[in-house]
């Protein structure tokens, strides 16, 4: 009886949270669908920090797949921000500003963040020949040894 009671409380709280919270799955169907679709496509090639630095040195286009507020708090120098909720049209417009780059590297908050892999698959589908993912993302890049650009430095 007690196991059932605890389970009922947990399930009720789950339903309330996902129905009313901004982070709830019922309220953010588009993001849930995005994650669902990401299962069906083959993952992009992943880079470690050293490889990412070398891509940066060779002038690859770096794309930050996090939400704009996170991007404004700090990002890899020269990165272009394409947030998860960007439409196909806006994505094309943003990438037009950097021409049609031969190599694109996408990063997100960290290995657990799904947006980099999702965006990489979209860009591959859009026809970009070489799209890679920096799996460590901002979390690894912004460790004390890395140099980073903050909004304060940009000003």
């Amino acid at each position: 009886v007690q196991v059932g009671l605890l389970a009922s409380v947990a399930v009720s709280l789950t339903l309330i949270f996902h129905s009313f919270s901004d982070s709830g799955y019922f309220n953010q169907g588009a993001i849930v669908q995005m994650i669902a679709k990401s299962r069906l496509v083959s993952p992009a090639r992943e880079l470690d920090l050293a490889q990412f630095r070398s891509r940066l040195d060779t002038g690859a286009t770096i794309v930050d797949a996090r939400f704009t507020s996170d991007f404004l708090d700090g990002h890899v120098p020269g990165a272009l921000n394409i947030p998860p909720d960007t439409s196909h049209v806006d994505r094309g417009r943003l990438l037009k500003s950097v021409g049609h780059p031969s190599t694109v590297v996408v990063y997100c908050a960290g290995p657990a963040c799904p947006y980099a892999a999702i965006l990489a698959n979209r860009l591959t589908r859009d026809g970009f020949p070489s799209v890679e993912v920096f799996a460590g993302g901002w979390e690894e890049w912004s460790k004390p040894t890395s140099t980073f650009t903050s909004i304060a430095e940009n000003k």
Partner: protein
Amino acid sequence: MKLLRRSFEIIIGLIFLASGSSKLNSSFEFLHTVTAYDLIGWHTTIAVAATLPWFELVLGGALVVGLMSEAALWLASVLTLTFVIACTSALHRKLSIPCGCFGSSEIISAGTVVRSFSIFFLTGGALILSLPHGVRNRSRVIQA
């Protein structure tokens, strides 16, 4: 013995509270992590990713407060053992994915499995201590 059991319950409760709240803070990252384990179908994945953090919070809260602690320990043992199996399976399949524990991006390793096993043993220990004295003695006789 009672004090030892309460200490175990509070430690496990705090672990579950920390784990549950970190998952709620990054609910979409957690959904992605559960997806990456590639063990269950999509609808079950959503159900697990949605309910697991709340199960952890409810069980953690019950254990810290000391309410329905025996039932909470049973459920906590099942959850921890399931997690150990999922981690071992991912490790066996050489998946390089985040474990989804405590909101960090820690990639699954043998260390993750050992740590989860330790929590499982802690839960099992607390469960044995919560059994009535007679039952505990009887199980000792059976083991002998």
